[in-house]
């Protein structure tokens, strides 16, 4: 892989002010989620009976206010954001790994195996996956790890298609032929020669799956099917806030605006990255 196209893409990305701002916002949000809770004396679960449903402000230690039980919303929002981001990363990695393995094998092996595998993808894409995930949460109970895996399994179909397309375009090239001639086995060729060469566009697509996954996790948690008490994610906090919005609107606003900022930043950055790498789309 030569580095010139990457450098050119980085230049195109930095020439795009929207993507650059999104990147900065993203860095700030991540830093806030990682280090923010340590700046505040409160913790996730302590009930402060002197400040129940307190207004946000700097007069007391609850900068974003508190909920009905007197729990600090600054810490809860940022800790919830941390959970949402972790789900986004883990489930994003799951979908990237699945899609990469499936697409590379289908594209490289080809023939009837490819036909069968792509037929499988076609049928899976016809399924309303969101409903299936809701379904899965019924079946597997509300296990945190199962949730990560199931959400990750949703995003991999498109990744697999992209990987297969890229693999088809490189499998007739000389370096693959050379690897075959030197006696490398199929698994080795796929791992050492195919995957590293198709990973670029796939990573770009992955940056656009992460916000979808975060959104999806929040959606499930909002419905009460995702992250469970005592941990909180942005989705559970928004659900609590929506229930209390007449009396304590800050309970909705703090996690709601954080989620919106995170999703907008991720989307704008992902779009910028895609435009930068795909010169056809550049305008």
């Amino acid at each position, binding site marked *: 892989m030569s580095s010139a196209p990457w450098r050119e893409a980085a230049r195109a990305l930095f020439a795009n002010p*929207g993507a650059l701002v999104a990147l900065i916002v993203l860095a700030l949000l991540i830093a806030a989620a990682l280090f923010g809770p340590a700046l505040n004396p409160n913790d996730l679960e302590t009930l402060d009976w002197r400040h129940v449903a307190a207004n946000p402000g700097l007069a007391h230690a609850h900068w974003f206010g508190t909920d009905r039980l007197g729990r600090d919303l600054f810490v809860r929002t940022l800790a919830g954001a941390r959970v949402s981001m972790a789900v986004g990363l883990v489930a994003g990695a799951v979908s990237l790994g699945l899609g990469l393995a499936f697409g590379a094998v289908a594209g490289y092996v080809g023939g009837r195996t490819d036909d069968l595998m792509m037929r499988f993808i076609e*049928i899976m894409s*016809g*399924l*309303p996956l*969101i*409903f*299936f995930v*809701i*379904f*899965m*949460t*019924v*079946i597997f*109970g509300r296990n945190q790890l199962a949730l990560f895996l199931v959400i990750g399994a949703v995003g991999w179909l498109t990744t697999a298609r992209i990987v297969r397309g890229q693999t088809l375009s490189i499998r007739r090239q000389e370096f693959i032929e050379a690897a075959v001639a030197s006696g490398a086995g199929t698994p080795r060729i796929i791992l050492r020669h195919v995957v590293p060469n198709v990973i670029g566009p796939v990573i770009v697509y992955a940056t656009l799956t992460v*916000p979808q996954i975060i*959104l999806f996790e*929040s*959606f499930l948690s*909002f*419905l*009460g*099917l995702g992250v469970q008490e005592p941990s909180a994610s942005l*989705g559970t906090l*928004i659900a609590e*806030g*929506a229930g209390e*919005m*007449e009396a304590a*609107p800050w309970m*909705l*606003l703090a996690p*709601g605006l954080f*989620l*919106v900022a995170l*999703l*907008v930043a*991720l*989307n*704008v950055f992902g779009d910028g990255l895609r435009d930068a790498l795909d010169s056809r789309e550049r*305008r």
Partner: protein
Amino acid sequence: MLHYFLRRLAGAIPTLFIIVTLSFFLVRAAPGGPFDQEQALPAEISANLQRAYGLDQPVWRQYLRYLEGIVHGDFGPSFRYKDFTVTELIAQGLPVTFELGTLALAIAILIGIPLGALAALHRQSALDYLAVSLVALGIAIPSFVLLPLLALMFGIYLHWLPVAGWEAGSARHLVLPVAALSIPPLAYIARLTRGGMLDVLGSPFIRTALGKGLPLTTVIARHALRPALVPVAGYLAPAVASIMTGSLVVESIAGLPGIGRYLVQGAVNRDYTLVLGMVILYSALLIAMGLIVDLLYAWLDPRVRFER
């Protein structure tokens, strides 16, 4: 054209069949049953319940019975809403969900397309920048955040509209839920229209049409709009999916008596037949939408019809 449609239809039926089969056996594989409670039921009562719902039969026979029921529009009895069949529950809620969904889709299309087209025509004007920023926001904000925020703004602070609730025939109660449902797909449609329009406006046949001296509006209406809408047509099925998923939460936030709540409550209560029925219904709707999209595609882009 008919041949094309029939081929697509023939592809849709096996998909639906696979969905039904897969969901049925997934449900049967689930640990724990719908009648599990804190206190274990006496063995005889539990056996009677199993018999009443046909759960004592071999699985393959239950499966065949279920398939036969579906063909006749019977999704079996609900396990939790005693004395109701799943079909009855769906029939009660479907009109509300359908009204909500079609309104949201219509608004998304009728506002999204002109917005995107105008932005493309006035590229890099203030209008374009405004549209692009609104689109970036609209795509990112999910319905379940948008609706509470809208309700806070227009319901609680401004008192213009009811915060939640439902009265048959009352349009005021529909405004906020429909807005929350339509804005994400609206933003997407506007973005796709803008992109499609920009692509088309740069192509040689438009230059030719303009070169012949045709007025701009004629060129757009007669030549540019149709090819520019191809990406939008491709998005319609995902748009319906997004509205259907959105309606799950929007109905529960706004307290609307649609079918969305059944899926969620069914999932929480382990009401298997209800969840099964809902998944099958939603899948069938999505597949039907996919077929409509295929037809639209073939109409918008003649090349599709002659493929393969």
